[in-house]
C-alpha cells in the first residue's frame, strides 16, 4: 500500500475495485466503514455485488477484464471537464501529453459499450473521485490477476496522479495483499529479479554489494518466475524444485498441468506443516513449524514490520523453517549460515536492505514500523511518495485497452471469475483443519445468477457440471444476485471441485500473474442416471 490501513478512515472518497474487502481483508473493511460513518463517499466497481458494495454510494459492475477501459474512460471525463489536478501534474509528473492523447480514445459512449458501465455512472464516479480532497483507491487480486494486471495497476496509478490523490495522508493506491507475509516475501528478495528491498540482481553495484556481504560470486541473470519454472520443468531445463510452505497444487491455474509438471522433476522437496496436495508429490518432505512455534517478523500489507513470537515448542521433530534452510545451506558448503537467533538474521537483513536499515528488534518490540525506515532515528513511513516519487517524477503510462485472453462464445457462454471467501484462507491447508472455520464452509460452490439458473433448470444446492477448455468439475450451485447475468464465481480454496482445474494459464507478460479472474465456461445440469 502506498498509504497505511488506519489512514483509510479519514479519506473522503474511497474507490474499491477488485476487492471483496469484508471477506478477504476484514480489518481493512472495518476502516472503510468508519470512513463512511465520517461522511466519505464509497464507490465500488466489481463484477460481484460484494457485502461492502451494499454500502456504496455507487456500485457498478464492469464486464470482466475491462478495467483499463473504464479507468481510461474516467480520465477522459476528468480531462474533458477540467477536474484534473494541474499543479500536481506539472510539478510532480511526466508523460502527461502522451496519456492525454491515449485517453482521448475513450469517450463515455465507447467505454459504456466495452465495460457495461453507463455514461452517467462513469461521470458520477469521475466527478466524485476527482473532486475529493482525499481520494483513495483500494484494490486486490481482482485487479492484478489478469493478463493486463500490470496495466490495470498502472492505470489506477495514472488516475491517482492525474487527480493528485497520492503522496498525502488518506490518499494513494492501495493493493491489499492476500497472505500474511506476501509483502515480506517480496521485500526479502523472494523474487527472481531482485535481492532484498527490491535491489536488482542485474545491477552491477548491487551484485557487488551482495557478493561482499555474502562472500561468494553471484549470478547477474534474473531467474525464473513460478509460471516460467513450470515451463522450464516441462522442457527439462529445471530438474529440482524446493518448495517452502506453498501449495501450488491448489493455488495454481490449470491443476492438471501442474501435477503433470511436478511429476517430471528429478527432485521435489516440500517443506511444510501439513501433507498438502503438493507434498503428496514430493520425494522428500521436511516438517516446518507454525507461526505459534517460531520467532520472527511479518510485513503487513501497509509495509508494517511486526514481531511474531514463539508461544510453544515445535511439535514432534519439526524444526523452524530457517533452521532447516540453514542446515541445508551449511551442508552444501554455504558460509555465514550460522545464526544464534532470528534476531541475528534480521540484523543482517537490515545491513543489506536500505529500506529496512533503521529497523531493529528493539525498535519493534512494542509496535511495528513501516518501511522505508533508513536510519535509527527514522520513524518509518506512513505513506509513500510524499514530496517526490522514488525515481523523482511520477510517470504517466498511456495504456490502451486489451481484451482478456479468453472470450465467451457459444461453446463456453459464461464468464468465470474466482476468489476467496471469508471463512477460508488460500488453499485451506490451515483453515480446512480448523473446526470453527470448516463448519462454516465445508465445500466449494459456484455462484450463479438466479435468472441464468432458471433458464438452465438449475436449483439451489444442485450439483452441476462446469467445463472450460482446461477441464471439468462438478460443484454445488448457489443462486445469488451477487453475480450478474452470464457470470459465475467459484471460491478457489477447495480441492474437491477445484476452481483451478478450470482457470486459464494465460499470464500477464510483466508480472507473470495468471488470469484467474476471467475465463469462459459452460454450465450444465448433471444428467440424472436412469436408475438413480
Amino acid at each position, binding site marked *: 500500500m502506498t498509504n497505511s490501513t488506519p489512514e483509510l478512515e479519514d479519506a473522503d472518497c474511497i474507490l474499491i475495485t477488485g476487492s471483496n474487502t469484508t471477506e478477504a481483508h476484514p480489518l481493512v473493511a472495518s476502516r472503510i466503514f468508519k470512513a463512511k460513518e465520517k461522511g466519505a463517499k464509497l464507490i465500488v466497481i466489481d463484477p460481484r455485488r460484494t457485502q461492502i458494495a451494499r454500502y456504496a454510494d455507487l456500485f457498478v459492475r464492469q464486464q470482466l477484464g475491462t478495467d483499463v477501459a473504464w479507468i481510461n474512460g474516467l480520465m477522459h471525463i476528468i480531462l474533458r471537464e477540467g477536474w484534473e489536478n494541474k499543479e500536481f501534474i506539472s510539478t510532480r509528473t511526466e508523460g502527461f501529453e502522451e496519456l492525454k492523447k491515449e485517453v482521448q480514445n475513450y469517450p463515455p459512449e465507447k467505454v459504456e459499450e466495452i465495460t457495461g458501465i453507463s455514461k452517467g455512472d462513469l461521470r458520477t464516479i469521475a466527478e466524485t473521485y476527482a473532486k475529493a480532497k482525499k481520494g483513495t483507491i483500494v484494490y486486490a487480486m481482482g485487479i492484478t490477476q489478469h493478463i493486463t494486471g500490470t496495466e490495470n495497476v498502472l492505470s489506477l496509478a495514472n488516475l491517482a496522479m492525474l487527480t493528485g490523490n497520492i503522496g498525502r495522508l488518506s490518499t494513494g493506491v492501495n493493493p491489499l495483499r492476500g497472505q500474511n507475509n506476501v509483502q515480506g516475501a517480496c521485500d526479502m528478495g523472494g523474487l527472481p529479479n531482485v535481492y532484498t528491498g527490491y535491489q536488482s540482481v542485474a545491477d552491477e553495484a548491487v551484485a557487488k554489494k551482495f557478493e561482499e556481504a555474502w562472500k561468494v560470486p553471484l549470478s547477474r541473470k534474473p531467474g525464473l518466475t513460478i509460471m516460467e519454472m513450470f515451463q522450464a520443468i516441462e522442457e527439462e531445463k529445471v530438474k529440482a524444485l524446493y518448495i517452502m510452505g506453498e501449495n501450488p497444487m491448489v493455488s495454481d491455474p490449470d491443476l492438471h498441468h501442474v501435477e503433470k509438471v511436478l511429476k517430471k522433476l528429478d527432485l521435489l522437496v516440500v517443506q511444510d506443516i501439513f501433507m498438502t496436495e503438493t507434498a503428496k508429490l514430493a520425494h522428500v518432505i521436511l516438517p516446518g513449524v507454525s507461526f505459534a512455534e517460531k520467532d520472527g517478523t511479518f510485513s503487513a500489507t501497509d509495509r508494517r514490520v511486526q514481531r511474531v513470537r514463539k508461544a510453544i515448542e515445535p511439535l514432534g521433530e519439526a524444526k523452524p523453517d530457517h533452521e532447516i534452510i540453514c542446515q541445508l545451506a551449511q551442508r552444501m558448503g554455504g558460509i555465514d549460515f550460522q545464526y544464534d537467533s532470528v534476531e541475528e538474521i534480521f540484523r543482517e537483513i537490515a545491513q543489506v536492505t536500505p529500506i529496512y536499515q533503521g529497523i531493529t528488534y528493539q525498535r519493534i518490540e*512494542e*509496535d511495528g514500523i513501516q518501511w522505508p525506515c533508513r536510519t535509527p532515528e527514522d520513524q518509518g513511513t506512513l505513506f509513500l511518495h510524499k514530496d517526490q516519487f522514488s525515481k523523482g517524477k511520477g510517470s504517466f503510462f498511456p495504456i490502451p485497452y486489451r481484451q482478456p485472453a479468453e472470450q465467451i462464445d457459444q461453446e463456453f457462454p459464461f464468464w468465470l471469475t474466482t476468489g476467496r471467501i471469508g471463512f477460508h484462507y488460500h488453499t485451506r491447508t490451515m483453515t480446512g483443519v480448523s473446526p470453527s472455520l470448516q463448519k462454516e464452509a465445508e465445500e466449494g460452490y459456484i455462484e450463479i445468477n438466479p435468472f441464468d439458473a432458471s433458464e438452465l433448470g438449475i436449483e439451489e444446492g444442485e450439483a452441476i457440471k462446469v467445463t472450460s477448455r482446461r477441464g471439468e468439475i462438478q460443484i454445488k450451485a448457489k443462486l445469488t444476485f451477487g453475480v450478474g447475468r452470464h457470470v459465475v464465481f467459484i471460491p478457489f480454496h477447495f480441492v474437491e471441485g477445484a476452481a483451478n482445474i478450470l482457470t486459464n494459464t494465460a499470464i500477464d507478460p510483466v508480472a507473470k500473474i495468471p488470469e484467474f479472474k476471467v475465463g469462459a465456461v459452460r454450465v450444465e445440469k448433471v444428467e440424472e442416471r436412469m436408475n438413480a
Partner: protein
Amino acid sequence: MDKTREKMKRMLEEKEVSAILALRRNHGHPTPFLFTKAEELKDWVADEANRYPLTKLLIKIARKHQSDVIGIIVRGCEERSLVELLKNFQLRQGKVKAIGIACSQELANRCRCDQPFPSQVEEGQVAKPATDFSDLEEIEKLTEEDRFQYWMSQFGKCIKCYGCRNICPACFCPTCTLEDANLIKPGGMPPEIPIFHLHKAYHMADRCIDCGLCEEACPMGIPVRRLYRRVKKSVKDLFGYIPGEKEDEKGPLEFLGDGSYELPGAGK
C-alpha cells in the same frame, strides 16, 4: 494501586490463592497473565483503556486446575460476570477470590456504566454511576420502519467473526445456538440477518452484565451493546431482574442450571 498490589502480594505469599489472573505489561502492552509469584507483580497493570474478558479466561484455567483457589482482579462489570459464571456453574464457589478495583469516573462515563465498582475495593474513590440511556433513546425515537432499517443496515456489515460472543464474559454454553445449523445457516457474510443478532440478543436478555466488551470487539462497529441493553431493560421492567446482581437469584428465562449442565462447563 499500591494497596491492591500489596494485597495481591500477600495473598500469593500466604498461599491464600495459588495464582492471580490480571493484566501484565508485556512488550509495552497490557495483556492477561496469571501471576503465580509475588516478584512478578511489579509488571501488574490496572489498565483502563484495554479491558480483556478475564473472568471468561479464568474458566479455562480453573477447569484445568480444579483444586486451586485462584484470585482475579475485577471491576464492577467483571464482578457481575463472576456472579453469572458462578450461578451457572462455570466456576466453583470458593475456588475464586475476587480482588476489586474501582473504575475512574472517566471510564464509568465512557462505559455509561450504572455500577462502575465491585462490592469491595482496596483503595481509591469509586466512581458515580453513569445512568445514561441516551444511546438507546436516540434509536427509540425513530419510527418502527426506520428502526428496522437502522438495524438491518448495521447487521448487514457483520462478518460473522463471532467476536461479540467469543469475548462475552457471560457466554459459556458448550454448544452455541449461533452455530446450530437448524437455527442459523452455516457460512454467509453477512450471516442470516436479523436472526443471527436477535438470537444472541434474546439469549443474553437475562445474562448480559452490560460490560460493553462485545461492542468493543466488533470490527464492523455494529452497536450490539445497544441491542443487549434494550433487552436487558425489558427483562428488568418485566421481571425486575438484573443479571449479575445476586448470586442466589435465577434468571427469569433460566431453564438451565437444573442439573442438565455438567461441571465443568465449556466456555468458548
